[in-house]
């Protein structure tokens, strides 16, 4: 038995992982989530902002991180729509541009069609700028130098919503959904710290440990990975009962596979250590 386990083909572990993740997805039985302080702080800030406040949404991620970050991006945009905040979308990632369009189409134009949100009045899509962190540095004092036009090519002076916006300092809140560079760190370094602008961050799991030291002084709160997204959905559902519906809980749904996959990994770690110690014991006896 020990020999069999020692020489177990890794592909059996992959198969076990496939079953551990696919089973809960097919079963569709989510676990309850409770927002932690880091997430609740962001929720409360968005909730308590005056209706119609300027919120910049910098979605700095690509389709490769969409599975992890889309639930939190959706929940945050949904919350901004509910509060009728004025939304300014932008991305520093070239392949993040279609995701901006998708969020605007699916959430603002479809889900909130009844609000009749108008481009240029209720929201603006600045689009993509290839200058990375330089975009943030310059936008801190002059937004038009980096984005003279919106994504459709319309001059910012001709858009009612941006006519009186001159820099990042006109934003009540910056929400950055980040998958790496440029992203969370750059927004802290070039926007939140030098200009004292409130910054809320949603990050991938890989990046989250780098973000924690910035909380709470340089960062309002943190939505760390899919768990952060799930917690924000829970906070939204608690405040707005119409969102206490499985179809609005993409993040919460993905926490059940997390649970079983983590259980499997913990079991495998215990098993691996057990094999190691059993082998040592066997060698000692010889």
């Amino acid at each position, binding site marked *: 038995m020990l020999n069999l386990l020692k020489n177990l083909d890794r*592909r059996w572990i*992959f198969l076990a*992982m496939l079953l551990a*993740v*696919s089973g809960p*997805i*097919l079963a*569709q039985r989510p676990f309850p989530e409770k927002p932690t302080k880091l997430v609740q702080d962001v929720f409360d800030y968005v909730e308590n902002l005056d209706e119609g406040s300027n919120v910049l949404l910098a979605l700095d991620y690509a389709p*490769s*991180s*969409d*599975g*992890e970050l*889309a639930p939190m991006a959706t929940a945050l945009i949904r919350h901004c729509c509910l509060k009728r905040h004025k939304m300014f979308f932008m991305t520093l990632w*070239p*392949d993040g*541009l279609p995701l901006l369009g998708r969020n605007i*189409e*699916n959430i603002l*134009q*479809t889900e909130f069609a009844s609000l009749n949100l108008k481009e240029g009045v209720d929201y603006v899509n600045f*689009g*993509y*700028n*290839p*200058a990375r*962190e330089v975009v943030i*540095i310059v936008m801190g004092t002059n937004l038009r130098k980096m984005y003279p*036009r919106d994504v*459709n*090519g*319309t*001059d910012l002076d001709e858009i009612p919503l941006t006519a009186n916006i001159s820099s990042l300092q006109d934003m009540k809140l910056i929400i950055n959904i980040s998958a790496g560079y440029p992203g969370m760190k750059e927004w802290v*370094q*070039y926007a939140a*710290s*030098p200009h004292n602008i409130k910054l809320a961050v949603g990050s*991938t*799991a*890989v990046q*989250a*440990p780098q973000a924690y*030291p*910035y909380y709470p*002084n*340089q960062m309002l709160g943190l939505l*760390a*990975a*899919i*768990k952060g997204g799930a917690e924000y959905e829970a906070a939204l559902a608690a405040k707005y009962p119409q969102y206490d519906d*499985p*179809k609005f809980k*993409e993040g919460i*749904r*993905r926490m059940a*596979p*997390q649970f079983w*996959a*983590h259980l499997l*990994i913990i079991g495998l770690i215990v098993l691996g250590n057990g094999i190691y110690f059993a082998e040592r014991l066997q060698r000692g006896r010889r």
Partner: protein
Amino acid sequence: MKRETLIWTVLFVAGGLFLVYRGLTADHGFGKSYVKQVRINPESQTDLRIKYVNSRPGVAGAEVSLPRTVGLWLSAFFTLAIFSFLYRDNMFYKIAESVFVGVTAAYVMAQAFWEGIVDRLLAGLTPQLMRGWALPDLKATQEPNYVYLIPLVLGIMLLWRLAPRGGWIARWPLAFIVGTFAGVKLISFLQADFVSQIRSTIVPLVVVTAAGSIDIWASLRNVGLIFGVFSCLTYFFFSVPHRGVVGRISRAGVWFLMITFGASFAFTVMGRIALFAARLEFLFDDWLWLIDPKGKRLW
């Protein structure tokens, strides 16, 4: 038949049979993408342009979109092709990998050209020409801004590296980039990561609440924070031998570091599982229609 060929054959036949079974038994089939037409500017009397948006099947005006359906099947194929690497390296994985790298590189290059070169550099230098060619919404009053000649010249100098002679010319713009970024990064790191982080560790060891009582948990947290920072710094302080008290503190620092690395690893695992779950959800929901958690197909 070789064992590996047998496994592949069984997998393909089983997968194919499942798709046929699914197609025959499911009420509405599977693997189709629906769209409907909407006006881009519904309030305008003159702007009659339309666009196609995703739609639920069964609603008025919804129709199957052939291009999006092909895209859906390609997505499913590439997802499975990438997963096939877990069995072993194979032709399908290599195709998927090459397509992914090629498409990404081309997309990023095209984006950089239009957003960087056309929309900024050329629009800044020759606004009239750009308005006639690519940017019709450019302001008619916009004057050429010759400051953009500097990045143009620096860019050309940077590309000089590809020329057979005079490669040294590329060093000047490179020096400019390195110098500029070193300056920018130095200031921002000093402010956001050095001074601000030191300030964040200046916290009271005994936290007293507004009511005058001691908040034990907050106090313990602050003590842990200070001790963690101090012990980690001691571990990296090599000017004194790590013996006695210093050795014990530095040993505690190692524990803090290990816990940090463990948390990082656990976060990484969580991230990868989330991505894996998202791909499986795509296969089960969008492609095979086995589940419908978002209510996308309420007939």
